[in-house]
């Protein structure tokens, strides 16, 4: 058995400034798990903790101001008693361009997935070209040899009917009626959709609909021909992961990494509802489009893996308040918990002390919130750079210096993975390579606010 610790990082380095409130989620009794494959230590009563941190704990009484508010969700970094069983559909592009090496590596990658899964997991495989084939309907992963035989029969076809492939894959996942599974479609494509429904809006709307039914899509773009705007857009709308796979030999590794990520999910379908008090109005939620209903703001979050941290940063407009303590907002986090095996709700209040004493304002600033803001702005800056590059309004030297500047910000804020991605992209620019497929992923990752 391989070590299933998540690859992205161990999270040990950047938790210095974070302090969780006492009592929000305490470590419970040690408990044996039914899964013999995994090491069991302690079991927390809940998978997540949440803090709701205002950018400044003081507000100036009698004045209007803008205020940042950070919802920091931390997955308890303890070994889990059990992992959630997976219900995964592999949706594979077998259009003509996949012929040869790419498809060979895809078959190998699918084989890896089969090897990693256990009899409690469900797997289905769908391929698409002009037509869509269900290579294997949703089944428990029991007879691994037989599944691999199915995989070997995949042949290249002609065009790319991504939409129907996606819908069929989601239907396979939906056909499994079992609670408490991680529902996920892994969509691999190497080109633009060329048949069936092809427009961005229809595809992304379909993704949103699947998301509302609890199915997340991880989007894997392979090679240099796929439409990164579409593939990353699918991941973004769904809250799934986005991967850019440059070479065919990397396909198995990426599949393995994604599977291992899925196996560490401890909180499914998390969403935050932020209830604003009177005299508080939303300006923006960084990196995502919230659903606003009067004073209630709902933000959907990606599934959360063990040991990772999700930050959601919002900007509020604060109207004039008298000098007193106010609860300016109440955040409510709802999610399906792998530890307690039920839907959990966590609440956190944002309290602000309004004061007439201007000198206290500077003392009240919160460094963590400030840091998250820097990261959010870095992401916007990257987006601008990307756009400028596409429209050729920014020349390469400017792009490089902008990226260098952003990279420095990210490094300072502890976003080492994203900083490394940027470094790779910059090297690629210098060699005349293309970077948009990488950059769009970096922006997405920053916007998701996920770190480990």
């Amino acid at each position: 058995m391989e070590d299933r610790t998540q690859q992205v990082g161990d999270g040990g380095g950047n938790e210095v400034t974070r302090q969780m409130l006492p009592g929000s989620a305490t470590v419970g009794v040690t408990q044996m798990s039914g899964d013999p494959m995994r090491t069991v230590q302690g079991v927390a009563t809940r998978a997540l903790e949440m803090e709701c941190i205002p950018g400044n704990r003081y507000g100036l009484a009698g004045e209007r101001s803008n205020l940042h508010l950070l919802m920091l969700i931390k997955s308890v970094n303890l070994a889990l008693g059990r992992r959630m069983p997976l219900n995964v559909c592999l949706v594979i592009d077998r259009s003509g361009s996949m012929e040869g090496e790419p498809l060979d590596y895809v078959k190998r990658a699918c084989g890896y997935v089969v090897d990693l899964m256990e009899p409690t997991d469900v797997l289905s495989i769908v391929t698409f070209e002009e037509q869509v084939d269900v290579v294997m309907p949703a089944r428990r992963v029991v007879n691994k040899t037989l599944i691999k035989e199915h995989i070997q029969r995949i042949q290249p076809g002609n065009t790319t009917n991504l939409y129907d492939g996606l819908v069929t894959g989601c239907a396979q996942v939906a056909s499994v009626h079992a609670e408490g599974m991680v529902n996920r479609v892994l969509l691999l494509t190497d080109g633009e959709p060329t048949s069936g429904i092809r427009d961005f809006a229809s595809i992304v709307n379909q993704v949103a609909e699947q998301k509302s039914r609890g199915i997340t899509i991880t989007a894997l773009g392979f090679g240099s021909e796929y439409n990164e705007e579409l593939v990353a857009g699918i991941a973004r709308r769904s809250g799934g992961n986005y991967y850019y796979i440059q070479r065919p030999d990397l396909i198995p590794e990426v599949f393995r990494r994604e599977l291992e990520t899925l196996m560490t999910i401890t909180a499914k379908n998390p969403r935050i509802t932020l209830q604003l008090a009177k005299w508080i109005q939303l300006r923006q939620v960084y990196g995502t489009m919230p659903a606003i209903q009067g004073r209630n703001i709902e933000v959907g979050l990606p599934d959360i893996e063990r040991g990772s941290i999700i930050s959601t940063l919002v900007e509020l407009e604060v109207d004039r308040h008298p000098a007193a303590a106010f609860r300016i907002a109440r955040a409510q986090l709802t999610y399906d918990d792998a530890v307690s095996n039920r839907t959990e709700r966590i609440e956190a209040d944002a309290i602000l002390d309004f004061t007439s004493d201007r000198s206290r304002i500077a003392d009240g600033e919160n460094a963590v919130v400030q840091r998250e803001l820097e990261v959010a702005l870095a992401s916007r800056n990257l987006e601008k750079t990307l756009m400028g590059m596409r429209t050729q309004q920014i020349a390469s030297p400017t792009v490089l210096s902008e990226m260098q500047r952003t990279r420095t910000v990210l490094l300072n804020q502890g976003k080492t993975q994203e900083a490394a991605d940027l470094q790779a992209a910059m090297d690629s620019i210098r060699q005349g390579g293309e970077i948009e497929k990488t950059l769009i992923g970096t922006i997405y990752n920053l916007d998701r606010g996920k770190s480990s």
Partner: protein
Amino acid sequence: MNSLPEDERTVIINTTSTATIATADDTDATQIGGSVVCAVCQAPNSTLDRYCVDCGFLLSSSVIEPMPEEEKGEANPYLVEQATGRRFELQRGVISIGRERCDILLMDKTISRRHCQITIQEDGAVLFEDLNSTNGSTVDGVRIAPEQPVTLHHGASIRLGSSGVLTLELPGQSSEATIQSVAMEKTEVAESEAETPMEGAPEASEEEQIVVAWLRPTVGNAPDVKITEGTVTIGRRASNKVVLATDPFVSGRHIELKTDNIGTTITDVGSTNGTLVNENKIEPNTPQLLLDGDTVTIGQTTYRYETAEIPINMGDEAEVEPKQAESTEEESDSKNESEIE
């Protein structure tokens, strides 16, 4: 977060967790208890609440010093985002609107980073200018030439890119314009905003919608409930349009009233103690049409449903005496006049 001084903490009778229940998203959580009026916003609160359900004031504390001025910028115009009800106050000077680093941020991909700006002049005139945005702007359905300021009137509906509608509300002018818009609405079956640039757009804000009917308590001095066009939600929680926070028999989300051109329907949205219409309990989640004179019992209070005499503009606080524009007088039915009283 736990930054409250110790002396404040000791006064608090309830722990956070019980306060949680009172506002939790759970219709079954109907509480029995007395009420406390918030010292800041005067909203009634259950004694179980630690913070005011409406303004968030720490109920066990006291206001150290009152606000310098009483009224909160009443003289300023507002821009109202129709889809969400967000209200943006427009203070004197230039207000930038766009997706990033603007005074008013709108989160729509078809809106440019700096899309347009509104200038409030010294005399209160409102100028709108599109800042050469990618997808352009329309005012009352008419496309605005970029970088050429146009004057906005009360009720103007602005659309940036393909985002939702923003409506301008000017202080003071609201009553006439609203009545005018009602008159127009009655004559026009379907208003196509693209065709006719209108004087007063019918999309009034939540606060300034026309009162079409009232729920007046048959006994006691509970406040009247205004029923405006569209949907009015009633319940104990602050997220309702009408908050009945003092009655413990009222559920968090209790009823929904929907008014269209046919009439007003009442729907019990799964309240704990139910809703009576003319003493009969209505089926939950089933709309029922209300008729003038019907009685409606919500929690411990019985109301009489009365359709409004003529459209009355509800400004900010009090009931404004209706200014009767010529056109509306003709429109108003004579039967209503006899029924009120």
